[in-house]
């Protein structure tokens, strides 16, 4: 039976046709709509964080001497405009942002953007390495749990991996430090001084992502394995390996890609725990410090960066899903 473009066998078109298509799988109208929604999401995140951080205390006390009189604190408050009502401060902040007048960090002459962007490469490096490990590990284990020849290979790795789903990342991190830094003395405990330093935090991130990926891939593969198009492919005489890797796996990737995309987005803010455990000088560590110091320009800027990254990632995921499954274009 030839593959149909509208029937129940989108697999072949998805895994062959879509990748060959040079056309952007998303119309300008849809793209515009998405960008508008994205801008709204960023604005909402900034607003919520701005209101929360200003409502929980201004930084005047942190910028004043310990024994400053109330009048001196008030003087500092007025200098930075913290004495204004929150809506006024908010409008001024948004106008400043819109006109490119990005606020400076309260603790140095650097702009908040410089402070935040300075830490971003470290976080992207850690996040990227962590996702790569998570996808490789989760994907391999998920695949093996369905297609491995021996039962022990099908069941043991996924069971072991599931354990990590119930262990919080900070505990995984500490356990890895105890084993690889203290017991075996192979790797440094913390910091970002050499490539060796990346391994433990990246594995920690990877181990937090891999179980969900493995499980989802497993259930997707199980679902596809009995589909009609698999029988068709078999009837066509395709090799088992080609059916598994090209057809079944290809069709199972849609939910996995969506999951990885969503996790990658939330990872940007969730990575803070791993960064703290491993003293990794990234965006998360900076965010914690700036919240403690009430350095609100840096906090809000960090949130803007995270929100934009999240939105871009979800857009990217949608595009990928559309590439993998053309039906979702409409």
């Amino acid at each position: 039976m030839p593959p149909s473009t509208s029937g129940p066998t989108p697999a072949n078109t998805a895994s062959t046709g879509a990748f060959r298509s040079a056309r952007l799988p998303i119309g300008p109208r849809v793209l515009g709509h998405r960008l508008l929604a994205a801008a709204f999401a960023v604005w909402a995140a900034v607003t919520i964080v701005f209101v929360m951080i200003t409502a929980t205390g201004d930084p005047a006390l942190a910028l004043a001497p310990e024994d400053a009189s109330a009048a001196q604190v008030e003087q500092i408050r007025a200098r930075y405009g913290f004495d204004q009502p929150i809506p006024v401060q908010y409008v001024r902040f948004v106008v400043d942002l819109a006109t490119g007048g990005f606020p400076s960090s309260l603790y140095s002459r650097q702009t908040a953007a410089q402070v935040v962007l300075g830490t971003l490469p470290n976080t992207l490096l850690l996040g990227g390495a962590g996702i790569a490990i998570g996808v490789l590990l989760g994907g391999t284990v998920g695949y093996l749990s369905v297609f491995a020849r021996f039962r022990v290979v099908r069941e043991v790795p996924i069971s072991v991996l599931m354990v990590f789903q119930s262990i919080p990342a900070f505990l995984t991190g500490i356990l890895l430090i105890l084993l690889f830094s203290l017991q075996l003395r192979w790797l440094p405990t913390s910091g970002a001084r050499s490539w060796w330093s990346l391994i433990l935090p990246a594995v920690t991130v990877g181990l937090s992502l891999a179980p969900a990926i493995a499980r989802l891939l497993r259930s997707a593969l199980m679902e596809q394995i009995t589909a009609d198009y698999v029988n068709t492919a078999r009837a066509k005489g395709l090799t088992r390996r080609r059916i598994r890797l090209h057809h079944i796996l290809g069709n199972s990737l849609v939910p996995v890609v969506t999951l990885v995309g969503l996790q990658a987005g939330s990872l940007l803010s969730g990575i803070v725990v791993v960064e703290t455990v491993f003293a990794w000088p990234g965006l998360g560590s900076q965010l914690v410090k700036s919240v403690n110091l009430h350095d609100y320009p840096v906090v809000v800027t960090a949130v803007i960066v995270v929100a934009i990254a999240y939105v871009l990632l979800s857009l990217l995921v949608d595009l990928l899903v559309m590439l993998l499954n053309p039906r979702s274009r409409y």
Partner: protein
Amino acid sequence: MKTQSLVRAPARVAIVMAAAIGAAALLVPAPAAAQIETVTVGIEPLTTLDPGKGRATRGDLAISSQIYSSLTSVNEDGTLVGDLALSWEQTAPTEWTFNLRDDAFFADGSPVDANVVAWNLDRMLKGPDAPMPAATGMRLIAEVTAKDAKTVVFTTSEPFLDLPRRLAWTYFIEPKWAEEHDPSTEAMGSGPYTLVSWDPAGDVVLKLNENYYGPKPAIPNATYRVIPNEATRLAALRGGELDAAFGIDPLSVGQLQAEDSLSVGAIDANKMQTMRINFGAPHMDDLRVRQAINYAIDKDAITKSVYAGLVGPGSTQILGPLYDGFEANREAWPYDPEKARALLAEAGLSDGITIRLGTAETGYVGAAQATQAIAAQLGQVGIKAEIETIPYANWVRYLRDPEGPALTFIAWGSQSVSTPEILAQLVTGAPYAIGPVPAAYDAAVAAATGAADEATKLAEIAKALQVTEDEAMTVFLWAQPQTYAISRKLDWKVRMDDWVRVYDIHPAQ
């Protein structure tokens, strides 16, 4: 030319990765040789290099105090010695004159003279960012003038006997350099070390300043490493990545003691942990209630358990031993739950009361666990204590809240090791004091602060201490344990104040 996709060449990826790992391995520092060239010390998260903005002796100031110079300095035994100042004297009741050395220079060769001192004080007290955090305890300074290059005169609004002590943590930057550079992230100093690199979330690297006017430090290079997580810091110590760390949780001290390479323990800090009383909270204006709370706390049991016996019960004063007027013969407030119940009954509160109890998530060694134990012990005499654990971000604001809890866990300290500065923390209207305290205390502290001579100052301090006890103005607890873990290859006499400075270190014999 690289035109092939990496994906198609897994072997190349492997080779590149192997090369990268190999190169990285070469970059990992070799183990220290017999002569100690460098030490690595764990430190609190950093914010700024600017000595006008730094606050923490365990953090920012530990770094800037080694890069910059001050007029005076406090020794490990609490005595005041000169740094830039060769001598100083009180030339009038409200005037101090400091004579400066002539061999102190910034790295660019410009002198650290009286004009630099005056400019820096002006910046902290009157500049565009004034009053800066470093202006803490400088309320009485009215004017600072450079009489000549080597003589600087401080005029105060009233007698200020502790001024030379107060100036022990005031560090000076170069005025012209500061116009073109950001002192928050860069440094050009005159102290024993110079800055090599500064990463407030990673490593801060210092090396010896060859032109330093003072005694040459024994350790030529130092790295301060920020590791916020306690468990990771302990692992780094055990793994030999850190040579020293401080402020370790008392309950973690035991597990480090098994390490042969480390000397681990605690000394009493020059800082007393107490429960601050909110005199405006319900029942707290009643002396009997305040006394009952003091009687209800079994300090011996808590220091033995929560603090692993590293400290013992403190005496009835908020001063550590390095402070002027510290009274060594004072004893701890006795533990007597029966008496506590009786006092509450006398106050008509035999049915019990409910109070709020505030504590910080981090900051004071052992505070969170100790607060739990204190609440349990208060419960045994009929005082139900509801604990509020506050994140560090909101702590200062919480401390200043007039509606704050009846009791708040706090440790009092002064970088200047100045007694009037500590006592002033409890006076009516002080930023961290709530409600009116006994007038006799306010009067004694004011008299000690503005005393014209040492004898009067000490007499007034003694009066203030007595009022603190008689009026049960605070809940007396214990000294903060100054916990440490230091590599045995180092000879580092741990200080009772919080300074963590490499120039205090020598190689072990």
